[in-house]
């Protein structure tokens, strides 16, 4: 029994460590990727993937307790909010005229091609 | 001898809680004012609340005369574990001064807000005014160093916006208010840093407890740095000389009610805390206090008295002249306090009272004619004394008090100032006061010349008398200035007791 608990603890630590490594890689991506969309991609993977690994790891380490439940609830919130935030950010960037630099998407004519006026207002940096 | 215990006219149930009620009255009233339907209601609430505070201040003074020091433990937790109000003669003196000035200002506000502030904002303005009063009263009654910061912020946050409201007359009120906000908050934050160092070194926030623990920390650099930061922070709030940059613009562009009230009270409460920390919390004979008084405070105060009086001469706007004169007068007080003897502190406190009375009267008179004056410059007031004698005679009397003409309170206090300085062989300080008085002769002469000897404006520019609502408080102040100039025994007794209480340390 004690053995099982010990290994669960070790597994938790491994997951948390993996989460930590993923965040480092993610932030490297935020720094190195060429445009907003790819950077956002890196950032949102850190937000969801790394956070999942860490929170689950911590929950395993906390064992069967109130803390573990709280961590799971926190995870549910992260899964709800951070994709939404990334989506809103990308949406705002797209509608203010930012075009992706990479991939086939940049060659496609998007359904909502940004208009000239939108581009101008986007450059003011006023849109939230 | 005056029997101060006869001042307790409140029932004993109230007197027991007088210290708390003194602050609580305006606090609760400010909520009521914020919720009141119109400006007239708010005005009545505001006047009643400040009258209530004055009533409580009288009761407190009586209690102090009977018992020496009143300690009121908030929440029933004895100091140093809970917050307590601790009121001695100094605290009682400020409670009286602040609440009576607030009562007069509140009476005046009925007229002044009608003239200057839009109806929609009057209730909020009165609420802010009451919060400011409550904050100042709390600052001067509390016995807890951090609690004093909280009250400092209550009084300041209200004030910033109230100054900014002056934008309806002159947009320069806005940058002035912003500047005051930045410097005021930096000052308050410095104060918190200083208290933090004292707390880290001594482990307590209660002023009396600090006073008993600091002598053991005589050599502690942390306590010294704490003292330095507290003095700089409060110096910013009190407009001590090189830190006075915010004051002239803030006074010049604020609505007249704020002119009256701030000039009479706001910087004074900061001076109170400086005195409290320098002589009561820190042992007055400690090296850091002594050095600070001799090498920092006295020289800066001397420079302030001369430089700012000179600057006042060259101002073109009437309110600015008075604002610079205020900084110079703060210099007088600081100079007297820097003498660090009982007589010096008493003289400083007396001058502070006299200055509150006369500056309030001066600003009130200017505010009184503000409706019919077209601009802000001195020349806009040409001949005001001829067409509005009832408003401008008090102005002249208050100016005489500013100069120190006999039979006004200004004479009494200048006499005491010089006496205290000669008593401690501060001859250069006497010279400074003499020079500064000569300089003030110039700007006061210039103001009076414009007001009384220039041809009066006619037609639509004619300057009209202030209405009765402004004249009554104005004349109350004027009569007080003359009364205390002739018979100053009562204020002198209070100021002397206050100085003794401060220097006597904890007991």
């Amino acid at each position: 029994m004690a053995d099982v608990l010990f290994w669960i603890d070790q597994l938790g630590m491994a997951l948390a460590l993996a989460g930590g490594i993923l965040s480092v890689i993610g932030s490297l991506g935020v720094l190195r990727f060429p445009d907003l969309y790819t950077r956002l991609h890196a950032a949102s993977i850190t937000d969801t993937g790394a956070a999942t690994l860490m929170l689950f790891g911590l929950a395993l380490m906390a064992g069967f307790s109130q803390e573990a439940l709280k961590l799971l609830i926190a995870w549910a919130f992260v899964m709800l909010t951070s994709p939404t935030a990334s989506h809103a950010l990308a949406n705002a960037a797209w509608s203010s005229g930012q075009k992706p630099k990479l991939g086939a998407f940049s060659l496609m004519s998007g359904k909502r091609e940004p208009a000239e006026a939108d581009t101008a207002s986007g450059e003011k940096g006023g849109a939230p | 001898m005056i029997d101060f215990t006869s001042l307790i006219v409140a029932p004993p149930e109230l007197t027991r809680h007088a210290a708390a009620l003194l602050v609580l009255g305006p606090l609760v009233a400010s909520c009521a004012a914020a919720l009141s339907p119109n400006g007239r209601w708010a005005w009545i609430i505001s006047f009643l609340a400040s009258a209530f505070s004055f009533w409580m201040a009288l009761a407190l003074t009586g209690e102090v005369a009977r018992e020496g020091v009143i300690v009121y433990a908030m929440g029933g937790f004895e100091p140093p574990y809970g917050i307590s109000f601790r009121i001695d003669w100094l605290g009682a003196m400020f409670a009286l001064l602040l609440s009576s000035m607030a009562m007069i200002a509140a009476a005046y506000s009925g007229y002044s807000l009608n003239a200057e502030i839009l109806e929609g904002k009057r209730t909020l303005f009165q609420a802010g005014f009451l919060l400011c009063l409550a904050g100042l009263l709390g600052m001067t009654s509390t016995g807890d160093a951090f609690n004093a910061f909280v009250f400092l912020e209550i009084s300041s946050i209200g004030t910033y916006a109230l100054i900014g409201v002056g934008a309806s007359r002159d947009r320069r009120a806005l940058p002035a208010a912003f500047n005051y906000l930045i410097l005021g908050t930096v000052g308050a934050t410095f104060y918190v840093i200083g208290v933090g160092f004292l707390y880290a070194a001594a482990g307590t926030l209660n002023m009396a407890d600090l006073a008993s623990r600091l002598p053991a920390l005589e050599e502690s650099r942390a306590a010294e740095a704490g003292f330095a930061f507290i003095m700089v922070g409060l110096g910013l709030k009190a407009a001590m000389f090189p830190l006075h940059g915010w004051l002239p613009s803030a006074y010049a562009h604020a609505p007249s009610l704020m002119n009256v009230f701030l000039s009479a009270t706001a910087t004074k409460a900061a001076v109170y805390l400086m005195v409290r920390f320098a002589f009561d919390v820190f042992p007055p004979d400690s090296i850091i206090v002594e050095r600070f008084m001799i090498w920092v405070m006295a020289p800066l105060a001397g420079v302030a008295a001369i430089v700012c009086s000179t600057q006042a001469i060259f101002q073109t706007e009437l309110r600015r002249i008075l604002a610079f004169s205020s900084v110079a007068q703060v210099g007088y007080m600081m100079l007297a306090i820097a003498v660090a003897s009982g007589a010096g502190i008493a003289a400083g406190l007396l001058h502070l009272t006299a200055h509150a009375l006369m500056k309030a009267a001066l600003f009130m008179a200017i505010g009184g004619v503000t409706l019919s004056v077209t601009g802000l410059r001195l020349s806009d007031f040409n001949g005001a004394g001829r067409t509005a004698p009832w408003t401008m005679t008090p102005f002249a009397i208050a100016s005489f008090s500013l100069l120190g003409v006999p039979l006004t309170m200004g004479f009494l206090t200048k006499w005491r100032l010089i006496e205290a300085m000669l008593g401690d062989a501060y001859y250069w300080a006497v010279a400074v006061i003499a020079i500064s008085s000569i300089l003030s002769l110039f700007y006061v002469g210039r103001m009076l010349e414009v007001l009384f000897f220039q041809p009066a404006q006619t037609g639509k520019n004619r300057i009209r008398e202030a209405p009765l609502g402004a004249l009554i408080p104005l004349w109350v102040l004027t009569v007080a200035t003359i009364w205390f100039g002739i018979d100053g025994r009562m204020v002198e007794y209070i100021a002397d007791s206050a100085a003794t209480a401060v220097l006597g340390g904890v007991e």
Partner: protein
Amino acid sequence: MSSFVGYANYFAVIILMMGGLYVIFSTSNLIKRMIGLSILQTSVGLFYITTSKVFGGTVPILIDEDDPARAELASRLDPAYFESAAYDGVVYSNPLPHVLILTAIVVGVATLAVGLAIAVRVREAYGTVEREEIERKDRIRHAHESYEDELDETEASEADA
């Protein structure tokens, strides 16, 4: 080593405070000055909390007698030290500075809101939030004797800019 660990926090916090102060006084943009003020206030909070930490301590929320966390917290510390610092079997950090800083944070946000509100009004009245431009506009306007007439002209030119 021990003196480095003992003082490094104070030094770092002092640098942060002075950084905030520098932002306040070195920029002329009103909004950025408010940011500097916030940083100064937060950093003062850091200073207070630094003084409140007790080595090996825990959050000052009383732990039940039968909570297993007690034993675990105690096992991490040197017994002699634990004996000197613990109350009722647990080492708690000092709660008082926490309370003070809670107050200071709330005071800070109230100041920030009022400051920003005034800054917004400054922008509406002057068309700018840079201190230097505001001072220049004041000089232009109030240098003239009859500025009342000029008021409309400057106003118009500001609206263009």
